[in-house]
């Protein structure tokens, strides 16, 4: 099956004015990545590693200065196909308050559909479906400012879902939320991926969120340094720490016990696995 995203050796620099000179600051360097339909990919990396710049290439907010990006086979430089690209890929950003435009939840979800000229009866169905799929249907008539941060992000996601995209790209959608809000948003996204096969690219600083994805990509200095399953990625404790990232505490505990000479598997990333493995060890002692 065709890749939903294909970045072929893309490069990108921003220009920074320093006094009278304009200096190019390279952000992405010769980066290649392909994402298949239905995947759930987490992208990790410290601030400034190029994660958000990469995300903005995935629906043609930015165009590569070198190399090519294909979205569902469409070259993102084809300007006349921009709307088509954006109908395939929806984006959700960090701050929920910057993404909500209407004064009633359901109107906000309908906003893009109205702009696309979708017939009213179909808007009604799509908005209701989208709100149900993020668990916000009963809040459809409320004002967005009455909602919690997690609820607002789910409304923003519903606005994307209503456009029936193949893929959602989320750029740190939980950074401003409390643990409950984070759980709501990540749970919603996982369900959309599982139930409807929507491809998800999730940029995050939370290692426990990445541990629940199917595939983890780690970026440093505009390059991909790791691209594997969460178990394989988080077993690289030292490498991750050297690029300013963390590992889940379960992984950290097992790592330190292994260093102390205890025999445990090196690919533990979840609480349950950790408890089972250590419990088995203790039982034998």
């Amino acid at each position, binding site marked *: 099956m065709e890749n939903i995203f294909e970045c072929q050796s893309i490069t990108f620099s921003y220009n920074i004015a320093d006094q009278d000179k304009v200096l190019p600051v390279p952000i992405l360097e010769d980066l290649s990545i392909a994402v298949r339909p239905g995947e759930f990919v987490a992208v990790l990396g*410290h601030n400034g590693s190029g994660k958000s710049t990469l995300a903005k290439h995935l629906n043609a907010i930015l165009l590569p200065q070198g190399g090519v990006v294909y979205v569902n086979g469409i070259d993102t430089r084809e300007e006349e196909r921009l709307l088509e690209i954006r109908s395939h890929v929806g984006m959700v950003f960090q701050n929920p308050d910057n993404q909500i435009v209407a004064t009633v939840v359901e109107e906000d979800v309908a906003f893009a559909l109205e702009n696309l000229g979708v017939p009213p009866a179909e808007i009604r169905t799509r908005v209701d479906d989208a709100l149900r799929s993020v668990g916000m249907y009963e809040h459809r008539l409320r004002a967005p400012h009455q909602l*919690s941060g997690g609820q607002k992000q789910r409304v923003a996601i519903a606005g994307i879902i209503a456009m029936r995209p193949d893929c959602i790209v989320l750029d740190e959608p939980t950074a401003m939320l409390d643990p409950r809000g984070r759980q709501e948003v990540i749970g919603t996204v996982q369900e959309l991926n599982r139930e409807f096969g929507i491809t998800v690219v999730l940029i995050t600083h939370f290692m426990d969120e990445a541990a629940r994805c199917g595939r983890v990509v780690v970026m440093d200095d505009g390059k991909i340094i790791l691209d594997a399953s969460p178990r394989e990625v988080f077993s690289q404790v030292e490498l991750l720490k050297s690029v300013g990232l963390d590992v889940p*505490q379960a992984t950290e505990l097992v790592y*330190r*016990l292994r260093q102390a000479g205890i025999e445990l598997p090196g690919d533990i990333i979840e609480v349950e696995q950790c408890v089972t493995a250590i*419990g088995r060890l*203790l039982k034998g*002692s």
Partner: protein
Amino acid sequence: MAIIRTENLNYIYGGGTAFEKSAVTNINLEIEQGEFVGIIGHTGSGKSTLIQHFNGLLRPTSGKVYIDGHDIWEKPKEIRKFRFKVGLVFQYPEYQLFEETVYKDIAFGPTNMGLTKDEVDERVLEAAELVGLKDKHMRKSPFELSGGQKRRVAIAGVMAMRPDVLILDEPTAGLDPRGRDMILGEIQRYHIQNKNTVLLVSHSMEDIARYAHKVLVMNRSEVFLYDNVEAVFAHAREIADMGLAVPQITRICIALRDMGYNISPETYTVESAKEQILALLGGR
């Protein structure tokens, strides 16, 4: 003596309207001078409302707030004095930067306190040093800096007023793990160096366990607990039921305890968990 004391503090939003809601209910709290207190509670638990009372941004609907023994609302005209004693760093403080240079932005608070130019200079440089800002940053526009550095400028601006109490609302939100560790380390250094009281609002129990001595848990507009870190972690299950995220390591230790192994359910650092497991394995 308590630096912050509240007496039957109540605050009601939208009093007399259909949206009336008690945001903090009957709070009686004493925070000692020199403490490093972590404050947790889910969204809407009353944390932000409570801390805004400590420097007089909100006036209690009923009850009293004492700073250093003084009822701050005794003479409302003098409330400004308490704003210099208690410095509040809001969430995403970098959005509040406005001056032409980093230096001027940090100097804004101390200048408003009516200090001499030399005193202001000394404080700006001290605060900048504490948060790791270098000389080369000082003449730059704050808007040329990275997100993490902007946040440091904003925090330095409050530190430069040398408040007796420094309150920070989620100072690490949106930062990567390295940026988070650096900023928390800087706050800890400020605390140790100045022996001032620090209140840190955070959603991360891991961070609170690492840096704070005491923890204030807010739930449904009330103080659920105010105690030292170990004692609070003894209530890990109840805290998890409130929808707060108990550290993974604590959850692992509770699960092992439930399996019948002698591991403290109050464990909150990876190091301590490792030591306990090694001790148990040593017995084989």
